[in-house]
């Protein structure tokens, strides 16, 4: 699975606004290799091989807003217990564009409009090249190169994965709290309403 750029909004779901939570820059252009640090070693994804900032992109039938950079150039968030609001409504899934520094998992907390709270598992696969997914995710974007602060490394193919989290209750969702696990990075989230889920 590879993301498809869309001139108009296709795909299902309601992309969530995350810019206010972005705190990490994981994507850089070749003229600014040292401008980000997705991981501990300051590697980044190559911007030229990914959708433009703020563009709409369809990944396996789900509509995502590819991150529009926030202040300081941040384009993703490290999970750190952020509380993310969702336009209240019925959803069956939260779809994510995400990648981790070594695969990891933690519980997030779904907050429903009626005050109920349930834990669900957030699992994020490793962005590192030549490392298969172990969680049943699908690759959304596999790049042909990886950026190092001083060079572009060919033959190394980092991945942004599409994951999903179930929203089981037959109730309106109001938001969710992410776990405190900075190994997990999230670039985009789309809430998919009942009946719109993709294969």
């Amino acid at each position, binding site marked *: 699975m590879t993301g498809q750029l869309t001139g108009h909004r296709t795909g299902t779901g309601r992309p969530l606004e995350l810019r206010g939570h972005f705190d990490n820059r994981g994507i850089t252009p070749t003229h600014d290799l040292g401008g980000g640090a997705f991981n*501990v*070693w*300051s590697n980044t994804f190559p911007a030229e091989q990914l959708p433009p900032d703020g563009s709409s992109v369809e990944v396996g039938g789900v509509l995502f807003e590819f991150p529009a950079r926030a202040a300081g150039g941040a384009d993703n968030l490290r999970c*750190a217990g952020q509380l993310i609001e969702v336009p209240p409504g019925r959803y069956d899934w939260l779809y994510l564009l995400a990648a*981790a*520094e*070594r*695969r*990891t*998992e*933690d519980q997030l907390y779904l907050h429903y409009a009626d005050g109920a709270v349930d834990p669900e598992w957030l699992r994020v696969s*490793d962005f*590192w*090249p*030549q*490392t*298969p997914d*172990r969680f049943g995710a699908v690759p959304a974007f596999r790049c042909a190169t*990886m950026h*190092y*602060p*001083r*060079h572009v*490394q060919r*033959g*190394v193919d980092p991945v942004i994965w599409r994951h999903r989290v179930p929203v089981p209750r037959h109730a309106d969702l109001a938001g969710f709290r992410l776990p*405190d*696990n*900075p*190994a997990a990075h999230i670039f985009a989230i789309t809430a998919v309403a009942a009946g719109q889920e993709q294969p």
Partner: protein
Amino acid sequence: MRIVLDGVRPWRHDLAGCLHACLGTLLDHAGRRPLEVLGAGWRFYYRLGDLRAEEYYHPCPDGRSLVASVAPGQGISSRWHRPADAEQGWQQVREQVLAGVPVAVAVDNFELPFRPAYRDVHSNHLVVVYGFDDERGTVRVLDAIPPFFDGDLPLGVLAAARDSGNRSSHERDMFFADNPIGNRWLELVADGAPSAEPRSPAGYLAANLAALRAGASGNPDSSAGPNSGAGPNSSAQPNSDAEPDRGAEPNSYAGRDGIARFLTDMSDRLADGHSIADELFVVSGVALAGTAVHADWVGDTGRRLGLPGWPELARRLDRLAHHWSAVRILAALTRTGEVTPRRLRGRQVALLADLDHTLGELDLMLAAA
């Protein structure tokens, strides 16, 4: 003369590093099943201050070699060699290969063209050497850590990587720099003479449970002698795979309680203004690898034996490994002040709760069996 050994195959686990990768290849070549040898044991051990700047760092309890520490109870050990210089270093490795034995050699990634860190980052890494061509002046090298490499290098290039001083020069030379490579190489001693009765799969689980529960207060197997040092700066001790006597080792952390004390001490030291990034990053990486490889062994063994409870236990173990993924990055981010003692303690609470649950389930499973 030209020789390339047959039967040298790559092995890698996604949550382990070059140590497990190299050992997997060497074990496979020696006729052992890598996952069985590397994954049956599951321990936690660390002695405060023991840390060395090596991607292949693994704490070695008293009297144990590196491999006996990674794979307790397998009757397999290892011997580090520290040649006097690069020439002796190559001749020793060449003799091993000539005798049909692949070996693991330490290298500085900074000197290796196939590593992304080439001419950029110094890092103390481990690769397998299993061939050479005297006429062409090349060496056959296998590195299963991405980007995968299996090919020939000029002997001079490998020699430079093995003889490197590994000196840091910028801020990204972290964790695994400033430890001279010293041409060291690792010999696997797979003598096929286990020190104890071969254990059944359930026997390994029982030994793991006992070791983790014994922690700092006891010794489930037997004690070993005083520490002769098992790092690459020491000579050889390819002997015991017995459990250490924790009481004889001040400042050591072992078992479940050792994990709790280690994480508490790390948080406390961070709160006191000390730098903990290197120690916590590297030690959590060891715990991550050991737990994850064990998880795969438990799952694989359960499926092979038709025991559905085992893959379920394996999934719990994987969950523990994923905690260590988080700890590792939390550790690194203490450098910038992004991670506070409070955040570390939060992870500790969650990790220990899951660890206790897993050990409890393991206990029940073994009792039922």
